[in-house]
């Protein structure tokens, strides 16, 4: 009889372990270091960048989210290999998946810090020539920043977890992260145009940006269609769906119930995505003020 000590929950023990493993990932620290350097640059206004507030959150999205995809993919494969090496263990794949998902608290914490820095920077010294278009509050800008930065920093690792569950092949994480970046760039104007309402179904988008609509040298701040508050809820729903889909992979899980939950989340995501497109600005609003230093 195994002399297992019955104190605390297995999920809690395993979650602590996975959090430590995430903290031990060199790629995470590489991304964190670069993010924090950029935070310092933003906070002390070292670059004198007049760009949109959304650009503040590229660092956590790319350096914590995209790199987090690779980190979490590796941690999940590591967990699977350990379980396979033991043949059959009492702790289920579901518990391991939830423990891995809980490790996203690590990039989330760094991203929250970065978000707070960006909010402070925006208030202390907003971008030069920054003109708030009509109908836009600071909360509107914060919502975009939260979605682009914090939610992507969590969503990237969760996507890595999902990929490791369903496509556990070498190189999948690297290919997925490259495709993710390419798609994101294309959807910001290259493929469908950065002003298409349905761009909000992607994980990253701008609701407020600056462009040269008035011709060369005539930069204006532009509000894109959509509602960033609902978009944050849409991203939260996608993250929840990712966790449920990853848990669903466990053959011993209660798949019937999980499928119902997943279906509900899919419906919720679609509804929130459509609402994000339709509630709020339905077309781009270009600020009449020309940004003098853009």
């Amino acid at each position, binding site marked *: *009889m*195994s*002399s*297992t*000590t*019955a*104190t*605390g*929950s*297995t999920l*809690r*023990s*395993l979650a602590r*372990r996975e959090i430590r493993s995430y903290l031990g990932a060199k790629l995470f620290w590489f991304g964190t270091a670069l993010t924090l350097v950029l935070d310092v640059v933003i906070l002390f206004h070292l670059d004198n960048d007049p760009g949109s507030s959304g650009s503040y959150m590229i660092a956590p999205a790319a350096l914590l989210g995209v790199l987090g995809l690779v980190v979490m993919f*590796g941690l999940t*494969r*590591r*967990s699977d*290999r*350990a*379980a*396979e*090496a*033991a*043949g*059959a*263990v*009492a*702790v*289920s794949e579901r518990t*391991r998946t939830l423990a891995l998902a809980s490790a996203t608290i690590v990039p989330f914490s760094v991203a929250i810090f970065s978000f707070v820095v960006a909010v402070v920077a925006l208030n202390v010294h907003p971008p030069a020539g920054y003109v708030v278009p009509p109908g836009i509050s600071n909360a509107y800008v914060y919502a975009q920043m939260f979605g682009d930065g914090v939610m992507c920093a969590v969503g990237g690792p969760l996507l890595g977890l999902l990929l490791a569950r369903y496509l556990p092949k070498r190189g999948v994480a690297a290919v997925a992260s490259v495709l993710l970046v390419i798609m994101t760039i294309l959807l910001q104007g290259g493929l469908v145009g950065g002003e298409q309402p349905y761009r909000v179904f992607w994980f990253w988008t701008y609701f407020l940006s600056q462009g040269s609509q008035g011709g060369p040298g005539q930069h204006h701040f532009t509000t894109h269609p959509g509602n960033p508050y609902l978009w944050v809820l849409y991203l939260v729903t996608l993250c929840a769906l990712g966790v449920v889909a990853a848990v669903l992979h466990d053959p*011993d899980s209660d798949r019937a119930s999980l499928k119902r939950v997943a279906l509900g989340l899919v419906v919720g995501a679609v509804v929130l995505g459509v609402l994000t497109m339709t509630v709020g600005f339905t077309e781009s609003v270009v600020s009449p003020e020309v940004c003098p230093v853009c």
Partner: protein
Amino acid sequence: MSATAALDGVSKKYGRATAVQPTTLELRAGVVGLLGPNGAGKTTMLRLLSTALPPTKGRIMVTGFDVTESHANRVEARRRLGYCPQEVTFPRGMTAFGFLDYVAVLKEWKATGARHAEVRRVLDLVDLGERATMKVSRLSGGQRRRLAIAQSLLGTPDLLILDEPTTGLDPEQRASLRSLLSDLAGTVLISTHQTEDVSTLCDRVLVIDAGAIRFDGTVPELLGTAAGRVHLGPTAAVGAVQTWKTGTGLVRSVGGQPAPDSCVVDPSVEDAYLLLRSQERTRQGVT
């Protein structure tokens, strides 16, 4: 004495191929050796008993739990068994201690102090105590094999299932492992190609071929099946299953009609196994 594990009419098919034919079997305390050629169904049998694989038909009881009945029963059984698969791919970047500590968490060792003590105990059991902080990727093949065995020993399981544990171990390490296994109190099931391991360690031998148990008995009983059928002489026996020239220049023949001037010698487990295999091949019509 109740059975630690039992198969009741258990069979396993992969598509149309039958890996394990309907088998009924009980395992009690002691060391049981599972012998058989490659592809005989040994690993499938062990995976069925370890709850890693569901049977196509039949009922499997492990440490008192019907593992074919429910997931909850499988979990209960997994809490009481240790399994070392034949091939282990270790996680990247982990130390020997870190790997075992992670597996211990997966085996529900929650309290850190007790878990670390258990990890150190099994590392010492397989003589890897001094390699605890070394990355698994830097361990030799034999050391990795011992590490794989160590994880199966976590928690002193009632049922220990080892799939070819001595592969890659040097003679000293094999002897050390035998010593370790012989000291365990519960039921140990070992699949092996090393007949020497069976003869020196096992209380009971199962010979499996083509997915069916062809022999079930003690080592002396297995040796008894070959008694008087192994000869040493100047020339090979006619129709022998296997012959080979020994270091003395005499030819050892397993089965067949002994040549004149041959003498009967004591059979080994390997001789008995070869004769059993020969009978099975004859039964199947394979020449």
